[in-house]
């Protein structure tokens, strides 16, 4: 099995790169697996990897309707951070961030995790207070955060709009230096290769079409490649959560919305870190290839189309150009849309379900990519142990009944506002 390294690269180069083998196998599905993971995105693949690595459960298949990594793990703006206010979120995302810090070596795959810092700008005293609270809460949890005043922001990014012409003046910001970006596709491929090496079957072009039930248990999963028996089923299908859950008879506190993202033509280094505009949804960073990667708000209506609309595009660009007036001449090269599984409080759900052996990983809203390793870790634990890990206890489905909501924005049960 080929270990990736400089040496292996050089050796292969001299051999004309003819000895490289598949990064992961392409097996036929077996009749039955201990655990079936529905969804070959980042979370599904990470779950399979940690099931094998942390829990020794290797009789696992990941079922992907298309090609692995074709969903949101490859359709986001690659931002990784753990700057959450509420403990239930903060502990979980920080766990994930710590996993990111060792991920390339863990997977023997360079996911290009780049801790270049994530800065949230504030544009009012009220927003500064809110960021102060968040930054303070993070510090008490042992998470890095720095509260910057206007001059502090200016030292980092001198080319933002500090002029009197700015509609929403910059008051300061909250910086998480350990936040950053990662190469999104590499995350999917790295986990796939890692899981495969531990014996997990990754089955592509295998769409789930139904569940076979026996009482409160699922006995098998019907797919376009036949029915596959199972001991347990984990679901990690992001925007398609409601559809797959419905096959199992579950109605969930989730709506699917489209979130657009954009990349500009490639440029020599211009923006070092990740910057988010606080007076409107906008965030930007620069990929290692040189493109500015940017995004904004969802399109505000339920959608399964990986395609958004002009008003949102214009809104995103207007916010971006307001924050950085030097962006106006740069050109948008590509746009894409991801389907966000927006939960009713804006926070994820990693949980047991009313069905005994069905486990749910959903409700990621904007936040799924950064959670990938942490999500896989605790979801694997939940499936393996049939009880949540301490980091996903607060992320239960039951919180909507009990009222233990994790509403970072205080927006209430209106998904489009989260």
């Amino acid at each position, binding site marked *: 099995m080929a270990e990736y390294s400089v040496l292996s690269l050089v050796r292969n180069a001299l051999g004309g790169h003819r000895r490289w083998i598949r990064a992961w196998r392409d097996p036929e599905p077996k009749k039955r697996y201990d655990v079936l993971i529905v969804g070959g995105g980042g979370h599904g693949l990470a779950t399979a990897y940690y099931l094998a690595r942390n829990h020794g459960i290797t009789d696992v298949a990941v079922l992907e309707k298309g090609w692995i990594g074709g969903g949101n793990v490859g359709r986001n703006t690659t931002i990784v951070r753990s700057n959450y206010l509420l403990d239930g979120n903060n502990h979980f995302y920080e766990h994930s961030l710590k996993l990111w810090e060792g991920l390339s070596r863990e997977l023997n795959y360079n996911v290009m995790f780049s801790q270049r810092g994530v800065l949230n700008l504030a544009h009012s005293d009220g927003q500064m*207070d809110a960021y102060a609270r968040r930054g303070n809460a993070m510090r*008490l949890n042992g998470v890095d955060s720095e509260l910057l005043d206007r001059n502090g922001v200016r030292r980092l990014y001198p080319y933002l709009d500090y002029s009197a012409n700015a509609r929403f003046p910059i008051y300061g910001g909250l910086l998480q230096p350990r936040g950053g970006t990662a190469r999104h596709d590499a995350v999917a491929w790295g986990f796939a290769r890692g899981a495969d090496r531990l014996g997990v079957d990754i089955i592509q072009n295998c769409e789930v079409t139904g569940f076979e039930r026996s009482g409160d248990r699922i006995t098998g999963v019907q797919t376009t490649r036949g029915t596959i028996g199972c001991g347990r089923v984990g679901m990690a299908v992001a925007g398609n959560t409601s559809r797959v859950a419905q096959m199992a008879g579950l109605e969930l506190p989730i709506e699917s919305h489209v979130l657009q993202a954009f990349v500009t*033509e490639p*440029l020599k280094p211009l923006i070092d870190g990740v910057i988010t505009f606080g007076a*409107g949804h906008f965030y930007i960073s620069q990929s290692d290839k040189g493109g500015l990667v940017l995004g904004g708000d969802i399109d505000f209506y339920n959608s399964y189309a990986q395609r958004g609309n002009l008003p949102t595009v214009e809104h995103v660009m207007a916010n971006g150009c307001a924050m950085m007036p030097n962006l106006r001449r740069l050109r*948008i090269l590509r746009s894409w849309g991801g389907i966000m599984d927006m939960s009713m409080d804006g926070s994820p759900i990693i949980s047991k379900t009313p069905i005994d052996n069905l486990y749910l990983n959903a409700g990621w809203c904007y936040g799924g990519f950064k959670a990938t390793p942490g999500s896989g870790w605790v979801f694997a634990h939940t499936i393996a142990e049939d009880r949540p890990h301490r980091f996903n206890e607060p992320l239960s489905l039951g919180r909507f009944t009990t009222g233990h909501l994790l509403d970072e924005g205080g927006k209430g049960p209106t998904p489009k506002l989260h």
Partner: protein
Amino acid sequence: MTGSDQSHRLPTGGAIDRRRPLAFRFDGREYRGYAGDTLASALLANGVRVVGRSFKYHRPRGVLTAGPEEPNALVELRGGARIEPNTRATMVELFHGLEATSQNRWPSLRFDALEVNDLLSRFLVAGFYYKTFMGFPGWHFWEQRIRAAAGMGRGTTEPDPDGYETMNAHCDVLVVGGGPAGLAAALAAGRTGARVMLLEETDGLGGRLRSDRETLNGTPAMRWAEAAAFELVDLPEVTVLTRTTGFGIYDGNVVGAVERVADHLPVPPAHMVRQRLWHIRPRRVIVAAGAIERPLVFGGNDRPGVMQAGAVRTYLNRYAVAPGRQAVVVANNDDGYRTALDLAAAGIHVAQVVDTRSAGRGEWWRRAVDAGLDVVDRAAVTNAYGRMGLVGCDVTRLDGNGGTAGNGRFVPCDLIASSGGWTPSIHLHSHAGGKAEWDDAIAAFVPGPGRAGVTTIGAAAGRFALSDCLADGFRVGAEAARDCGFGSGTAPDAPVADEASVAPLQAIWSVPGTPGRKVKRFVDHQDDVTVEDIELAHREGFVSVEHLKRYTTLGMGTDQGKTSNTAGHALMAGLRGRPIPAVGTTTFRPPYTPVAMGAFAGRAAGRHLAPIRRTALHDWHAANGVVFVEAGPWLRPQYYLRPGETNSREAMDRAITEEVVATRTRVGISDVSSLGKIDVQGPDAAEFLNRVYCNGFARLPVGKARYGLMLREDGLVDDDGTTSRLADTHFLMTTTTVHAAEVLADLEWYLQVVWPELDVRVSSVTEQWAGMALAGPRARDVLAAALDPGTADVSNEALPFLGVTTTATVRGVPVRIFRISFSGELGYEVNAPADWGIDVWEALMHAGEPHGIRPYGLEAMGIMRIEKGHVAGAELDGRTTPDDLGLGRMASTAKWYVGRGMLGKPAYTDPDRPKLVGLVPVDGRTRIRAGAILVADPDAPTPIPKLGHVTSSAYLSPTVGHPISLALLARGRERIGEEVWAVFPTRSQRIRARVTEPCFVDPEGEKLHG
């Protein structure tokens, strides 16, 4: 490189204006071209061959194409704040004084240090970075270097000085593309009287007719195009937009287009925007976007001097430029012969015409042979030579089985015109959700079934013959107009094209290399993706087109794979042994070509990012020393400086303190116009309010106000405000400033959707009334003095706390007076019709002068409400219940109201929930800032358990003489009198705080009622 004297300009011909020479600079050197040139044609005219460097291997590259698909000739256009990196030289219209710089090279275009990457290319294969850089010194170290090497052009950190705007349009028929098919469609539709828009990406109509020497009925086809253009301009309902790219179709068939209004000028003249973004809402869309030629994939096919065959014809015929002196033409279709004949006609030596086909001997072959050209078929160029410019190539026989037969023959040349066939531009069809279908005859995807109302025609539909393009255009144009109610749908007669029959194309996705030579065969020129990279991706399992794209970066350049995707996908299909359509194509997303961010943003820039809302009293504040602050859309007074005083931290602190002291001890006045005001009328108005507020409103007497609390359906507090009963069936509701719009929408929701049986009408009157809060011990005296005598009695008896009167006038202006108070002082809110707001305000100021009245702003207001323990935005944060805020008693148990169904949730009734309390520093002087976290033990190991947080704080309460804060604290009400730690680790602060009641001033409300 030859001189700067337009050495490669043909003596005659072309659509350039030889009377208007234009000077321009490239890499600091001055050249000349003509009006009508592009930067690319002008560079070629001057014999400039190397224009840029490739993305990864930094290989020298020249001009490959003549259109928007150009992957190589990318330059930094202009400079300074107007720099435009990655600009395709093929799309830049030459203007006088144009400055362009080559990019992605250091120190110069000719000597680029990173060309070492080309030597190391065997290590830098697709995806090499995933396999390394994991150990010491870590990715971040390598990343810095990779980032510097990657990227292409340079951006700027200076603000763009130019303007942009948006334009909305509607039409019956929109035609995208002003070539022969599009012109025919626009004519056919336009003649019916339908409203027609035609978008053309370049500066003029005609499309490929501008580049080719085709004829209609024996006359140059361009003449027909010119006549069509004239006719269109004369049709009153037809709009032709040139320099306009239809970059995307969105839902509802709305087309986004960008018009380059001033990009062909040195700088936009006064009052002219640089670019304009169009939203076009057509009833029918006709896509006539043409087709893009594919390069053949052979060794060294990226050498400067290797060019698309169609582009060669464009440079010859349209720009009168000889892209070389000695040409080899290689093609898998008849375009090779066509190009060779045009080259010969322009007097350029055609050293060899190479046809990769075994069955290409049709009419065009015959013409080439008859013209005396040296034609060889079943052969290919297998390797091209010349680092900084082509010097020759190997021409080798093909064995028909994907290999070569015999050794190559070296043919000296400085130009290779290559054609691998044409790919229809189905982008817009695909944006609209249309499917793509493989057409073997042209070896390309053509539009399959698509969305209703969108029709793709001509070359964009894979119908390349001029006669087909015209027939398509006339037919579909007439039909589209008919569908919109114009004309009979009968196509006008099309002129007859004089066309030779075409021998079928034979696809060849990669040409084998010259035997015995190492060659690089580029599939994607810009991102340096080679045939070997695709083979590696296949070997490693990245076989779907999405994986292929992401792993190799095929099609990820600024050209988005326009010249490379088809070949790349076909090669992968071949490796997988699957038919090409089974491997598929990537989905196209807008934009078709890159669009400036500024164009999307339009006028929403700087100050105009969002509209500004001003109160009716704005002009008074502005004239009286105000410092405004943004509060959502509103500008509100933050505090007032003394006349002539400059703003500073000290001035602010003093102003705020004075404003509080004046109000608490004498009288103050503030602008509360931004509070939402909603007029509620109808027989069921009281019942309606009873349902939307958690406290009772049914029995509120006429002439009284009441504080109301509104919950969301999830039981958490949504908004608050006072609502007054003006008449039995008439209420005036007030809301917070931030929630005003939302609350109105919610009320409309309940009336229209949930309780349509209630007979109630609601409307916003926020803008109708200027609101002024007059507060302080002297407020009544001031008010009484300001009122027109006899219009209202405002004595404590006649107008007690929460009383309302609507009979008063001030300077003749009818006003509404509400005895309510946010500050906790004796207070009145006076509402005056907005146009007279300043008159009434001035009357109150005048009446207040003897009492030392002061206007106060949001800061003083904030301090006074904290002193009173009144909740505001920081406490109404969407996570609190009425009980959390000490307002639990307001929630009625006698009726049902919005949110009640959820109030019993376990988490909401948990006694450990944070509750509203006051906090004071134990040391009596250290401010406990909002955002501080409350903990029992700041030295506990992390994560340190949190008890709550500070919501609001006053750095100093002038009334109580020390800093005060409000907080939400677990079991807060039980902790009153205890001490906690307020920690602020981001400022390295920890403060011992005493928990108090949330109300610091006049807890009994004596002032209020006095």
